[in-house]
């Protein structure tokens, strides 16, 4: 046999071998996925340290989200346009020490709900009693989400409700009633918003408010001037809603200063989060944009500057729909999780887990997307995600909800969607050019992800195994200790679907410690405060958040899992004012209520 012939045979063998590489990788992935097979509760508890039990109805919560019906010229694509508004936020509105839930609805005339915790495992909807139910009246728009913060430092959490419509601010009157103070606050007449965050950007001890527009604010989705209200591009759109930064003046009024502060963008914001990403003591702002790149604004105290490209998080345009931060590697630094879209064969954006690069810090901080390396990349049409230690083992896990439009299981709109997604702005931006959905699903009936952190840089999806088996169109997810047991339960708001409450049953072997903070010099909600916990050679940082994920706000109480037999060294609290206080050797199994020293 000649050398050339032999080489040719070798070439063919290698060629066939290479072609089979994707199949081998698929097989390996399938093997990994076996960890997610459905198993019994006991087995889940033994294997993963927790399991989830859906208890909404048993707890007296029977809430089903209704979607809006927009201008009839959008009828042919209504399911995908009227696709948001199911949202949940956590608040202890009456300061009884038990977490309550505020849930938005989006049908015209539908009612929002405030589920008061009855301390006995049940909840009662008291929204109508306190004046927070009937907020979706025709002509005012419909609710998209809510965030809670004590803007006047009176000790009670106030409600900001953002809508596709008129944003509203409600003052909490001692946990008994809510008074509408929108006009006094000076809020705009109409914003099509899908994200808002309370934070004290200038550290003056008063909560300010960021509000992110999605559709342009001059679009009334019920009375369209024309049908050219869609994004001008699937990944490079800049014709979305404007952004607002409301500076709290301290007398109940707010001054809109976004442009003055350097936040001037019309990308399609769907989620935002705020955290001290550089260790500067300032709250930096991260915005996850649909149809484009994410934006990161460094806060220099009074002024913001956009550094997405320099830091690496604003390079590749995707469909950002979630922004949440968590110290996933227990290294005392926040990573940022952004959810996007992945649909087999059509669009594989992959979600982003932006982890700070070793050796970079301060203004020179750089981020690497480690979602693939850490196995939290593919989540379908992903929406809300939250970090939290679900099995109290000392590492942050990740709960992701997904699914866009679940309609006819046998009819798929993706092909139609992909036609228009490639079109020039004159085509894609006009809803009249979009193919009719005709009852088709678009990334519907998707399985959720419960990614368990193994502590060594990898996550494993155990959703089915631990009981998170619903396939509703998930939007907003929060983590909250609903029954003061030292565990994180999960609440999910589903578009056109029920509110789900997953009660978490965690192995008793793993310990925990919680911190409930109250500011004095800092804003009273302590939003922006950080607790850095040191135990058994580990450290983990968490912060009190004024809104994160997608249209959600988890509990303000900070929950740390500790694993077995922990020896806690100290808890370092850094308040938004800059003060640092240290608790030496706190005990596990306790909720520490800490007030900032004056």
């Amino acid at each position, binding site marked *: 046999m000649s050398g050339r012939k032999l080489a040719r045979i070798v*070439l063919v063998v290698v060629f066939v071998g290479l072609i089979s590489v994707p199949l081998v990788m698929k097989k390996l992935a399938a093997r990994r996925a076996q960890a997610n097979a459905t198993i019994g509760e006991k087995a889940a508890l033994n294997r993963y340290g927790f399991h989830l039990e859906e208890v909404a109805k048993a707890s007296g919560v029977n809430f089903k989200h209704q979607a809006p019906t927009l201008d009839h010229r959008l009828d042919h694509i209504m399911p995908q346009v009227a696709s948001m508004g199911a949202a949940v936020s956590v608040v202890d509105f009456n300061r009884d020490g038990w977490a309550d839930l505020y849930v938005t609805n989006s049908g015209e005339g539908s009612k929002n709900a405030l589920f008061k915790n009855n301390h006995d495992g049940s909840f009662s909807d008291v929204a109508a009693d306190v004046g927070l139910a009937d907020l979706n009246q025709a002509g005012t728009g419909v609710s998209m989400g809510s965030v809670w913060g004590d803007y006047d430092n009176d000790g009670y959490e106030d409600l900001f409700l953002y809508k596709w419509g008129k944003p509203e601010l409600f003052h909490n009157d001692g946990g008994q009633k809510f008074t509408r103070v929108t006009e006094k606050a000076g809020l705009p007449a109409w914003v099509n918003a899908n994200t808002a965050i309370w934070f004290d950007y200038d550290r003056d001890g008063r909560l300010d408010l960021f509000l992110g527009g999605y559709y342009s604010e001059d679009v009334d989705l019920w009375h369209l001037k024309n049908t050219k209200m869609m994004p001008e*591009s699937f990944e490079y759109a800049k014709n979305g809603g404007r952004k607002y930064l409301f500076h709290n003046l301290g007398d109940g009024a707010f001054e809109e200063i976004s442009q003055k502060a350097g936040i001037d963008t019309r990308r399609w914001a769907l989620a935002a989060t705020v955290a001290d990403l550089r260790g500067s003591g300032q709250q930096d702002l991260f915005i996850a944009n649909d149809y484009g790149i994410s934006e990161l604004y460094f806060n220099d105290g009074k002024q913001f500057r956009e550094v997405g490209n320099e830091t690496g998080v604003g390079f590749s345009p995707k469909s950002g729909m979630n922004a949440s931060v968590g110290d996933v590697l227990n290294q005392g630094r926040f990573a940022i999780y952004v959810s996007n879209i992945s649909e087999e064969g059509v669009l594989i*954006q992959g979600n982003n887990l932006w982890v700070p690069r070793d050796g970079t810090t301060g203004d020179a901080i750089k981020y690497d997307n480690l979602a693939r390396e850490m196995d939290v990349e593919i989540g379908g049409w992903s929406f809300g995600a939250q970090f939290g230690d679900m099995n109290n083992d000392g590492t942050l896990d990740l709960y992701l909800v997904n699914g866009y439009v679940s309609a006819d299981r046998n009819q798929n709109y993706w092909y139609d969607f992909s036609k228009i997604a490639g079109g020039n702005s004159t085509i894609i931006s006009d809803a*009249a050019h979009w193919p009719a959905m005709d009852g088709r699903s678009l990334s519907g009936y998707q399985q959720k992800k419960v990614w368990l952190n193994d502590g060594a840089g990898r996550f494993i999806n155990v959703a089915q195994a631990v009981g998170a088996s619903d396939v509703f169109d998930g939007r907003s997810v929060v983590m909250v200790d609903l029954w003061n047991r030292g565990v994180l339960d999960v609440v999910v708001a589903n578009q056109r679907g029920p509110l789900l409450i997953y009660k978490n049953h965690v192995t008793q072997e793993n310990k925990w410690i919680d911190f409930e903070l109250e500011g004095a010099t800092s804003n009273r909600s302590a939003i922006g405060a950080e607790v850095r916990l040191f135990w058994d050679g580990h450290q983990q940082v968490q912060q009190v958040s004024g809104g994160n994920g997608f249209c959600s706000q988890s509990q303000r109480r900070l929950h740390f899992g500790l694993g077995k037999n922990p020896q806690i060294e100290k808890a370092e609290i850094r308040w938004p004012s800059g003060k640092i206080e240290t608790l030496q050797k706190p005990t596990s199994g306790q909720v520490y209520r800490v007030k900032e020293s004056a």
Partner: protein
Amino acid sequence: MSESTIQPVRAATLDVPVSRGSWIGLNNRYIPPLFITFILVVGHLFYGILESYERTALAIVCALVTELVLGRIFFGKWLNLSSAYISGISVGILLRSPAFWPYALCSVLSIMSKYVLRVKGRHLWNPSNFGICVLLFLAPETVAALSVQWGNYKWPLLVIWILGSVIIYRAKRIHISVTYVASFFAFAFLRSWITGDPWFAEVAPITGPMYQLFVFFMVTDPRTTVSTRRGRIVVVAIVALVETLIRLAGDFQLPLLRPFYVSPPILALSIVGPIAMWWDLRRKAGTPVS
């Protein structure tokens, strides 16, 4: 255009005479790589199109190295790398994946296909077309084809279409591109009539960047198109027809054909191209193949 030539390096690069076969002082061989680089640079400067620099670089390097190694082994020479460069850069642009390995694998398979899948000394598939199709069929959970609009600045788009047309015209391949574009628009009318979807929805894909690359680089590849002008016109019209059939399968939700309608033009070419080449080679049987 020339994505798939296997030629010894000396004939192409070292002794390039500036003659009637050249344009602005460059041999036509180097126009396509320059043009595709131009598209990449313009696209990235205006829109930031690259998934990442690293992935695109990986695709290009893998294509170049594979071409060098295989050329050395099977031809005993260092081959001209312009066609491998186009293959690599096409993979870097057309393939979308958050992972690195598909870019490397696709580039290597693309180049290898030129050496493995040969009939009468000619390869049948356009290299990057083959590589991308393999990945789309076998790894749809990890890769997708470029399917979204880069952006909406009109001038860069216009420059790319005009410059591309001029270059294709100089390369005497404009009849292929024109036939394809005309067929696409005609079939878009037909699809719109059949499905009831807006005509704009049917023409929307051709305004996207995937089609710019498809029209200028993939469907015009001299080494994987048939030998006669008439034949090329007929073949490319058939490509557009098959694409329309795939698109209608998408419209009517034929589940069996779902793997095809993720990237209709690329898959249509991968079906029609080799059949046409095989038919052409068979027709010319007895005639030495250059």
